[in-house]
């Protein structure tokens, strides 16, 4: 063997020697080894290494690769990677988004009972009633109670005891879901109390929901306006004969006016889960045990109802601050938890990472099951009734929702397939409300999953009447890309999850060409393009929906390297530069080779020199 060949062979062995020297399994571990181990513990175990772990690491023969493998299988690893994407997508909803659809809001009024003691009566504002005096309002009149109810304010007038006859005529006593775990039973007996903390951790109604007005007597049943207790799934369209217009002088209450749809469809059945049913039928209520409604503690708009954690940096199971939260927080909180659980499931089970955009699966607990089954449809269908759209086509097929109690906050069930419109995070309420507009939805996907952003060109903006932003000077630089992406969300209503099905909402509607187009045209169709809003940039994208966007994004050549970049930047604690190109290439290749498994990517990253030697650790004093 020539000398040159020997040298070449030696050179080939060099990386192995280097790796051997760098492997901290020898007895004389140095500071770099310990710091590497500490970094691994911080990133993969979610905490600094314990003394026992440091001692174990110090021993000769410590199996660091085995330690890494074990921790790549644990919840702390999943949480670490989840944090990368939660920081990017910020999937929690703040108080600025008030989710208070009237059909689900069970308000509470305090009146004086026949025995001259205060009693609570629950009702929905806007509830349709046959009695013209109370239609759309509280079920007891001023003549009954002496009170004049105000919207979002305390009642005026002088309270007087309501007669038993009026009370019996207008109200019913119910054992509601928020007080009884067996509320659907014939004689509910499992009332909120001792033991519920273990069975349903995290489920805590505020004290005002658990006691009578005296603040002492435990509430065992609630008094509710009669119409609200109805359980029918469908109700008939009710025409009251009321014409639109301001109330006549001196008239305090005017019942809701009949819409064009009501006039032409009186007697027809509409879904009681939808807002439409609530608005136009006197037969729609809150369902058995009031399961379609959320309770509140006053007639105000967003009063406290449940105690919820305000800070959960280590997860909802470890609250750092608990306090009574407005009723709208209940839904918002669980939407955020759905995203957390969904991401954890993808990372912990090492599923194909692309599923976070494309997957139809999700995880739900009791409050989310209740939300998807009864609450979500309550935002539908608005002016869609003019198109006969009164039974919402859901993003989450209700037949696939597991039978969980609304109180059951602790049981999380994986639903493998939400239905044909579902597409990972993109069709979850937390995403659709966090990013209310179609453009916002497209933008965050573009930046988080393709690592691109929109940067406006440097030019003077001129006044323009051009409605097409893809060609309007000054706008086109960004919108030529953004508009076609936003078009994927054409069929999901903004700040909402209502699906606009093609059979009801064709891309262009002939009735919208009329001189005085009906109301739905203004809300759903863009008058400039005579097409569904956002569809003009790409009708094809509009028809493919969010699932189409997910397919296209995960198939984009930038996707694997963007995932590698986002994760590496988070783990290395810095932006990647061109000096990291080789690392980025390797990570992306590993990611693709492993069929888009995050665990493979993180394994390669934490074993890389870039991670091992991350940051310039100068000697500390």
């Amino acid at each position, binding site marked *: 063997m020539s000398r040159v060949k020997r040298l070449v062979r030696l050179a080939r062995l060099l990386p192995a020697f280097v790796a051997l020297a760098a492997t901290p399994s020898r007895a004389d571990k*140095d*500071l770099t080894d*310990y*710091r590497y*181990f*500490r*970094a691994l*513990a*911080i990133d993969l175990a*979610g*905490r*600094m*290494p*314990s*003394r026992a772990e*440091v*001692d174990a690491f*110090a021993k000769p023969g410590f199996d660091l690769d085995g330690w890494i493998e074990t921790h790549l299988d644990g919840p702390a690893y999943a*949480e670490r990677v989840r*944090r990368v994407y*939660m*920081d990017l997508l*910020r*999937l*929690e*909803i*703040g*108080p*600025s988004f008030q989710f208070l659809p009237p059909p689900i809001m069970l308000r509470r009024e305090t009146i004086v009972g026949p025995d001259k003691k205060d009693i609570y009566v629950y009702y929905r504002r806007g509830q349709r009633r046959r009695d013209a005096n109370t239609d759309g309002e509280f079920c007891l009149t001023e003549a009954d109670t002496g009170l004049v109810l105000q919207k979002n304010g305390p009642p005026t007038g002088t309270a007087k005891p309501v007669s038993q006859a009026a009370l019996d005529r207008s109200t019913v006593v119910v054992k509601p879901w928020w007080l009884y775990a067996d509320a659907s039973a014939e004689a509910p007996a499992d009332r909120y109390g001792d033991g519920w903390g273990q069975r349903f951790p995290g489920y805590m109604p505020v004290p005002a929901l658990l006691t009578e007005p005296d603040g002492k007597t435990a509430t065992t049943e609630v008094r509710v306006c009669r119409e609200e207790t109805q359980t029918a799934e469908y109700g008939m369209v009710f025409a009251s004969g009321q014409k639109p217009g301001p109330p006549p002088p001196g008239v305090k209450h005017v019942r809701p006016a009949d819409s064009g749809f009501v006039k032409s469809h009186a007697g027809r059945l509409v879904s009681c889960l939808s807002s439409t049913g609530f608005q136009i039928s006197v037969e729609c209520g809150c369902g058995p045990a009031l399961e379609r409604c959320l309770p509140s503690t006053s007639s105000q708009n967003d009063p406290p109802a449940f105690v919820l954690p*305000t*800070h959960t*940096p*280590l997860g909802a199971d*470890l*609250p*750092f*601050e*608990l306090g009574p939260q407005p009723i709208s927080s209940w839904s918002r909180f669980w939407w*955020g938890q759905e995203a957390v659980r969904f991401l954890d499931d993808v990372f912990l089970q090492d599923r194909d990472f692309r599923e976070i955009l494309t997957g139809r699966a999700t995880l739900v607990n009791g409050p989310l099951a209740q939300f998807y089954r009864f609450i979500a449809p309550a935002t539908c269908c608005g002016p869609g009734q003019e198109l006969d759209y009164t039974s919402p086509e859901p993003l989450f097929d209700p037949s696939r929702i597991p039978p969980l109690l609304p109180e059951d906050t602790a049981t999380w069930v994986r639903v493998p397939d939400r239905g044909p419109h579902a597409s990972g995070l993109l069709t979850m309420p937390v995403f659709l409300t966090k990013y209310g507009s179609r453009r916002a939805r497209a933008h965050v996907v573009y930046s988080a999953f393709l690592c691109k952003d929109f940067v406006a060109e440097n030019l003077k903006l001129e006044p323009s009447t051009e409605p097409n932003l893809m060609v309007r000077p000054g706008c086109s630089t960004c919108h030529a890309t953004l508009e076609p992406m936003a078009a994927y969300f054409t069929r999901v209503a903004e700040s909402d999850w209502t699906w606009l099905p093609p059979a009801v909402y064709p891309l262009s509607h002939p009735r919208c060409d009329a001189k005085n187009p009906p109301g739905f045209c203004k809300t759903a169709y863009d008058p400039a393009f005579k097409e569904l809003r956002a569809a003009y940039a790409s009708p094809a994208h509009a028809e493919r929906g969010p699932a189409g966007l997910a397919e296209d994004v995960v198939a984009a050549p930038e996707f694997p390297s963007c995932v590698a970049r986002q994760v590496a930047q988070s783990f*290395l*604690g*810095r932006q990647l*530069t*061109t*000096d*990291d*190109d080789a690392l980025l290439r390797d990570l992306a290749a590993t990611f693709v080779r492993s069929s888009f498994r995050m665990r493979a990517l993180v394994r390669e990253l934490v074993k890389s*020199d*870039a991670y091992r*030697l*991350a*940051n*310039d*650790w100068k*000697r*500390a*004093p």
Partner: protein
Amino acid sequence: MKAVVVLLLIGCAHDHLEPVSVTTLAGHETLAQDTTPKERRRMVPPEVYIRTYLELFGGLAPLAVQQKARGKGNLFDTWDDYLSALGLPDLRVDIPRTTQTNAIMIATFERLGVALCDRAVEHDLAGRPPPVSERTVFAFDAGATDEESFAGKFDVLHRTFLGYPAGLAPSGRTARFFDLFRDVVARHAAKDAPKSAFKPEEAGWAAVCYGLVRHPELVLY
């Protein structure tokens, strides 16, 4: 003179260059080089800091730690007062994660660290302490401490907080901490010493603990 300046400026002017890898530059293809980017140290994620903190408090739940840490003397306010200062994001209102330390954050680390150290002294050293195996921070027999025995005890604390043996620390660290310990013990033992909840040795160990929980190596990695 003006002409010279103008000429110099023109000479120095150049077209905009895109950043490229150093290996693509002539003469740099084969040079041995450390391509590891040199950046500021990473900050330990606040979630990790908090989880470690809870474990050092005996693995208690956050609200239990809040109650225990507050104890006598209100060493601890509420988590709500600290969480954002520690750099946690508030995703509800789009406040991003803080990735570099700042003065308020350092003060918060100090506040939390002092609460931890004092409660640990009370639990591990004062009165009738539990067996060494049940101590979370001062997992050694305190006893009388001279320079020689200090090293072993300090090593326990060093590994607890900084994750490696004190013997690997930059030279002189153990000696400096012993000086601190000795000085604090002496001050607390002095006749005119202000009243303290701790005995001199306990105060000495508390001071050593303060030094470690404030150390930059604790919150950076």
